[in-house]
Structure formats: structure tokens, C-alpha cells
């Protein structure tokens, strides 16, 4: 004897489809819930949470101490000749704060899918009526906030220990550049998360890409010290133009190594990486589902 949904006490839910406001709202809710889930998991391991919070500072300090030891103070004549400012503390700090966000793209987003696979929840997530990208973006949101917390700690420690001279009026345009960089980095992160679907040892690819991007980004040195080919390659990633743009707003007397409109450059990169990311993710998604590779690791 068949019973209706009402008799079972079930409520019929209409899943919004297509590109409309209610669908967008539902997808944003999925992103938010995925972000909340990551915070809950993180707070369940307090030692890991604290370690990850201080890790940006741990990796910044060697750059600062090494720089100060090399020149025997905080002013470098050679750096001043290259970029107009010789203040190595301000130069390294403004460069290094961006590195954590490369980690967001490469590690947090790249591993969002992989982690669900380890937990055994990937298939369950895949059958929910929401976009798979929502999971990746939720993880990205969590990691971005996490990185911002790390930067606040970095700022406090560096300010109290070494002193920092930054232009306050440059903070707003620098934040604009940061937002544009994050859009492009999210696109890059989506590509990595797609790779995580097919590659068994995805961390090797993530770590390799992170290392390459670290060299191509002018974090602790101006772009000009890189070989010409590397300088050209760095234009394909958002970190180099973003760092140059942010430094020109934040550091007194800073002379950008590359001429051009940073905003336009970042807008183009953002559109290109997001588009490329979505296409690659969609193709990989279809490929792994057809081959039944979702559960393999």
C-alpha cells in the first residue's frame, strides 16, 4: 500500500534551477554552509588551528631576519636603487602577506575535494542538488578569513618588533587590488581542485605549483632580479601585478618595476582564470563521474 509523502511526514522541497535569484541564493547558502563546516572541523582540532594561525609568521620571520643580517640594518642601498625604497622590513612584509593567499588557492581550494574523498563524504556531496563549485568556494571563503587572521598576527608582531612605515591612505586602493587578485586566485584554485579529482598524489602538484608561484612572485625581492623569461611568466599569475600595485600604494617612494595599469591587468587575469577554472572543473567533473573515479584515492 503506497503512502503519500504527507503521510510519511515528508515535506516536498522545490530545488531552484537555472540562473535566477532564488537559485543564486541557494548556492550562496551552500557556500556559506560549506564554510561553516570547515570552521567547525578546524575548531575541533585546537592545536592544529593555533599552529596554522601562527604559521604565516613562522615563514615570514626567516625572510626578515635573513634580510637584516645580509645588510646589517633595515636599509638596503641596492634595493633603493632598484625600486626607490630601501626599507627592507616594509618591502618584505607587504610582499609576504600575499603568500598565504596563494596557499588558499593551491592548498585549501585544491584540497577541498580531495579531503572530502578522504573523509568518505565526496559521493554524498556530489548527489546534493547544488553546484560542486560551492564546496570549493566555501573552503576558499574559510581559508581567506583564516589567512586574514594570520596577517593580523603578522602585522602586530612585525609592528611591535621591527616597526612598520606604511602609507595609511594607500590601504583602501591596496584592498581593491587585493580583492581583484583574490578573484584571479580563486580561478587558479578551481583549476587545482579539478586536478585533485584526477590525480592520486595531488599534493605533489599543489606543492610544486606553490613553489613555482613563490619564485615568480616578487615577495622578498623586486621582479627585476628574475631572468627575463621568469618576469614574463609572472605576468600570467595575479600575485606579481598585485604585489607591485599594493606596494606602490603602501610604501613611500616605491617605484614600480613594471609599467602598466595594474587594475586592468588584474581584471583581465581574474576573468581569464575564473573562466578557465570553470571550464576545466566542468570537464574533469564529467570525466571522473563517467569513469566512476570519484571514490578512488
Amino acid at each position: 500500500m503506497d503512502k503519500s509523502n504527507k503521510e510519511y511526514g515528508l515535506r516536498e522541497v522545490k530545488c531552484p534551477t537555472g540562473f535566477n535569484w532564488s537559485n543564486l541564493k541557494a548556492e550562496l547558502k551552500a557556500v556559506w554552509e560549506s564554510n561553516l563546516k570547515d570552521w567547525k572541523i578546524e575548531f575541533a582540532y585546537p592545536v592544529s588551528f593555533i599552529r596554522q594561525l601562527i604559521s604565516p609568521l613562522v615563514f615570514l620571520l626567516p625572510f626578515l631576519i635573513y634580510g637584516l643580517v645580509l645588510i646589517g640594518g633595515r636599509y638596503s642601498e641596492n634595493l633603493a636603487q632598484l625600486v626607490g625604497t630601501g626599507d627592507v622590513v616594509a618591502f618584505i612584509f607587504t610582499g609576504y602577506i600575499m603568500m598565504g593567499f596563494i596557499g588558499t588557492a593551491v592548498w585549501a581550494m585544491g584540497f577541498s575535494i580531495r579531503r572530502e574523498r578522504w573523509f568518505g563524504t565526496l559521493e554524498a556531496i556530489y548527489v546534493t542538488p547544488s553546484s560542486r563549485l560551492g564546496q570549493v568556494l566555501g573552503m576558499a571563503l574559510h581559508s581567506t578569513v583564516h589567512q586574514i587572521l594570520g596577517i593580523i598576527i603578522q602585522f602586530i608582531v612585525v609592528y611591535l618588533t621591527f616597526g612598520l612605515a606604511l602609507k595609511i591612505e594607500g590601504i583602501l586602493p591596496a584592498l581593491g587590488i587585493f580583492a581583484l587578485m583574490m578573484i584571479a586566485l580563486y580561478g587558479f584554485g578551481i583549476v587545482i581542485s579539478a586536478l585533485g579529482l584526477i590525480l592520486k598524489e595531488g599534493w605533489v602538484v599543489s606543492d610544486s605549483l606553490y613553489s613555482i608561484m613563490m619564485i615568480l612572485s616578487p615577495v622578498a625581492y623586486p621582479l627585476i632580479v628574475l631572468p627575463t623569461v621568469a618576469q614574463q611568466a609572472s605576468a600570467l599569475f595575479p600575485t606579481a601585478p598585485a604585489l607591485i600595485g599594493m606596494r606602490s600604494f603602501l610604501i613611500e617612494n616605491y617605484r614600480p618595476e613594471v609599467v602598466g595599469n595594474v587594475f586592468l591587468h588584474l581584471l583581465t587575469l581574474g576573468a581569464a582564470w575564473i573562466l578557465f577554472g570553470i571550464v576545466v572543473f566542468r570537464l574533469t567533473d564529467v570525466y571522473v563521474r563517467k569513469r566512476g573515479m570519484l571514490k578512488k584515492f
Partner: protein
Amino acid sequence: MLKSAYQQSTLRSNFFVVWNELIKNLKFLLAYPTIIVFWAIFPIFWFIPFILQGQAFVGGLQSANFAQITGTGEYVPFIVIGAVLNSYVNTLLYGMGENIRREAYQGTLDYVLAAPCNKVYILIGKALSESLSSTIFAASQLTISVLLFGMNITLGVMLPVFFIVILFILGLYGMSLILAAVSLMYKQSYDIAESIGYVFYIFAPVRYPIESLPTWAQIFGKLIPLTYALIIVRSFMLLGTNLSTVYLEVLALLIIDIVLLLAGFYLFSWIEEKTKKSGTISHH
């Protein structure tokens, strides 16, 4: 006569355990060639930014201030040696703890610990395989660095360097044993291993001389085996000194090794016994 035959057979069995553990771990490694390539090459990418930073800040390959503190103005070989020795920390320290965890994930830890042999020999086998792979990776990184940055290395110093690396590895074995014990008890040794890695990275002279740290940090740094290994190896390779100049550092490294190894073996045996009794060995 009988006792001697028994002793011989025990010795052979123990050697058999060590050998097979070594072979098993090497087979695991060989099953993932991308990981071999990664560890042999990519750690170089982690210190290249420091070399580029040096070029941007001093405009050449020599730093006068660096020479005042370290005795050598050449910061490139200083960084390379620091990075290569630090790679042992990355592979050995995480490797041993993770090795035990991997057995738990694969469901083989119960069988390994229930095997009728002394568990110390299993750990020795694991440690040997980790040291062998770490040494191959370190040699590869050093060779690539020599070719890439034009470093001059006298082959004559490699023998005492090798001796110091062995002493350093022994200290890391002790720490790894402590981590493996923690891994048996608390299951999540990864965060502790990472945190120890952070301490090594900041307080040991990996990227900068220890003298550039505040006094309290220098005292702390002198409790770390990596500090002495780096001071001694850099003295041999960059300053051309011999064992008689750095005998105090060698002695300090030896004492740290003994303390860590004794603590490691004691802690592992104690926790192994405890987890066996509580029946939580295969939990993960």
C-alpha cells in the same frame, strides 16, 4: 654451544626484520615515482627566493655584514647547506610518525606489533629506510645546487660531513621515536611534527646565523641537534676547518643524540605496552 646457536639465530632473525622493513618501505617509495622526483628537486625551489633576496639586497653574491658574523660573505652556499640539512628534518621527522600512522590506516599496525619480534628492530628498519631516502634526496639537492649556483665543494670534506650527518640523523631518530610514540597514543602526530619543524626552522641557523637571534633564542637554539650539525658542516665546507676546531660542537651533538635516543626508545616501549593493554592500537 646451544646458546651460541640460539644467539646466532636471534641475530639473523633480527637482521631479517630490519632488512624486510627496509625493503618494504623502499617498495612503497618506488611505487610513487612522482614523490621521488618531488623530494629530489623541489626543496631547491624553497630556498631560491632567499638567494634572489640576497642579490636584490646586496647587489652581488657577497655580503660584508654576513662575513662579519659567519666568517664567510658567501650567502649562497650558507643557504644551500642550511636547506639540504633541514630537508632531513622534513623527511625524517614527519616520515617516521607518518610511517606508523600509515600502518594504522592500512590496517597492518596490529599485525606488525603482534609479530613475535622486538619492535625496536621494526623501528630501526623504518628509520633506516627513511634515512636512506633522505640521504638520496639531500645528495640530489646538493648536486643540483652545485651545478645551478656554481658552488665549490671539496670532496675531501665529504667524509667528515657524512660522519656529522650520521650523528644528526641519530638525534632525529630519537625525536622520531618520541613522535612515533605520540602517534600511537594520540593518533595525530602530524601537528606536533609540524610544530617541531617550525621550532627548528626559526631557532636553528637554517637561513641565518644563530648569532643574529636574541640571547634567549640562541640558548633555545643550542638545544636543537640541527644547530650543531649546521655549525659543524658549514665550518668544514665553507671555512675549511677540521674536527679539532669544532670538537665541542661534535660533543654537544653526541650528548643530545644519546639523550634523545634513550628517551625515544623508553617512551616508545612504554606507550606501545600501554596502547596494547588499552586495545587502541588500530584506532585512527
